């Protein structure tokens, strides 16, 4: 019986010892330079917490970098998604057409679902008819109408900004009715 107890105690002692020592080695190998390792061991012997704090700082730095990379990727994805969303308007109008409402709702859902810290610029555009000064105002009203709709759908107003390009930013340069219809639009651009 005594022999059995001694064997169990010995095994426990070996297992405990084996479990602690490699853990220290791994930490030292992964996160510390040899000199730091030596210093850590010396300070550990002096029962200070300094080496552990150094480890935590390093880990935090790694984490921040990973998060930043993820946000860039998310922003890129958001920018790509938004660039495909276009709201079109009727000639000389700035109210949202019924058939364009699902697009506005889609943009609202995208913005509400995104985890990234963003500012989106709504860009109003016009066809080539009318004077440019009036068209800049018309483009601005188109951007404002969609901005208000997005706010009504739950997008925070401080996340949205607007600008008008009038007729200066056509996506279609042919002089046809189909082309003019494509140019009467709002685009969405993610601002850095």
């Amino acid at each position, binding site marked *: 019986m005594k022999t059995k107890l001694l064997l169990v105690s010995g095994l426990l002692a070996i297992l405990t010892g084996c479990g602690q020592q490699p853990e220290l080695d791994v930490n030292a190998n992964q996160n510390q330079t040899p000199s730091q390792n030596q210093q850590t061991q010396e300070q550990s012997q002096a029962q200070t917490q300094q080496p552990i704090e150094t480890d935590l700082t390093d880990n935090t730095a790694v984490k921040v970098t990973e998060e930043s990379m993820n946000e860039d990727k998310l922003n890129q994805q958001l920018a790509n998604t938004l660039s495909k969303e276009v709201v079109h308007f009727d000639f000389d109008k700035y109210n949202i057409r019924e058939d364009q409402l699902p697009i506005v709702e889609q943009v609202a859902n995208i913005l509400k679902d995104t985890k990234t810290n963003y500012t989106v610029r709504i860009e109003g555009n016009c066809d080539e008819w009318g*004077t440019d*000064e009036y068209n800049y105002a018309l483009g601005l009203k188109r*951007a*404002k109408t969609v901005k208000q709709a997005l706010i009504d759908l739950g997008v925070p107003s401080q996340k949205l900004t607007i*600008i008008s390009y009038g007729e200066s930013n056509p996506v279609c340069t042919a002089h046809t*009715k189909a082309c003019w219809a494509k140019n009467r639009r709002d685009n969405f651009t993610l601002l850095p």
Partner: protein
Amino acid sequence: MRVIILFFMIIFLQAQNLEIVKYVNNVKPKIAVEYQNLPIKLQNIIKKDTLIISHYNIDIKTKIDNIKEAIDENKYEGYNYLLRLDYKNKALTALLYNLISHKVVLYKRYRIPTFDVYPFMMHSLSYDVNEKLGFASVPWIKKKIVYSIYMAPKEQSIFLSDITLTYRKKLISGGLNIFPKWADNKQTTIYYTKLERQPVLYKYNIHTGKKEKILTVPGMLIVSDVKDNKLLLTLAIHDQPDIYEYDINTKKLTRLTHFVGIDVNGQFYDNNKIVFISNRLGYPNVYQKNLDTNSVIQFLYHGKNHISVTAYKNKVVVSSRETNKAFDNNAFNLLLVNKDTNFVKRLTFGGKNMMPVFAKTGDTILFIKEYRFNSKLGIIRLNENKIFYFKLNRIIQSFDF
């Protein structure tokens, strides 16, 4: 036999609306031109100027050996004046001789720093000749035109030209540079908007290239009119296009209109008023605001779709969409309205005729015609009942002169 035609009379037609200048015996004064050295380019400009001014005729006759040689008046029976010209070493010498009174009425030398600015030199000559003949002054012929043209999507550059668009110089390029307006009467500086992250208003010296940031606001920023140190701007500070007055000296910004729709294209009018375009009744039309009383009234009751306006005393010119068809060829024409009589005269036929601007003399209007996807600078001579065009193979976004 010399034909003596010294005076002309003006008769009024069409209820004070249009003044047609008529000459005694329906013949304008004739000027014979002799030249010692006059490149064809210079000849072309003086011919164009004569057509636009429309007060006299010229006839480029013969080459002479020396501008100072004796004048043989017998060669020019039927002419009223003899104009002698000599261009050399970037200087034009002009001598205008009255064949009726036998007197030299103009003897002047015009110097230019480089040959490419010769159109301005010839315009100065035409201005002086017109003055010496005693006709209504034509200071607009010497003006510089500044305009923004479409280069590509999100790419517009600002250019400088003479009134015939013969001289062309790119002033500002890179990005969206729009709505240039002259900042001073001497035409040395311009205001223009650059669309950066937000619209920015700059003041730019065309001689030194010095650029000064004046104002930046979100959404929209356009200089619509300039009067001394005050600017009429269309701004959208609250995401809403309204008209503001900005004092360059005090940097004070005053909101002049408050409307939930579109207010745009403000123009100073009659000392204490502005006229502007608004869609208050559901369609763009011309309105007037009295800056003393703050009252806003509809300015014109003719037509239902006016997109730009210019006014001089009782004369108002609007660019008006006359048909219900959105994309008709004659969708936008210029209408001259007499505010006193409400008489309306159509000034243009066909194309998109926009952005009318009165010359300070009130008898001439410059505007842009878009036709078959090109722009033309149009010059309307109201009293002569004539329109002249100068073509540009690009679309003009806006202009000022």
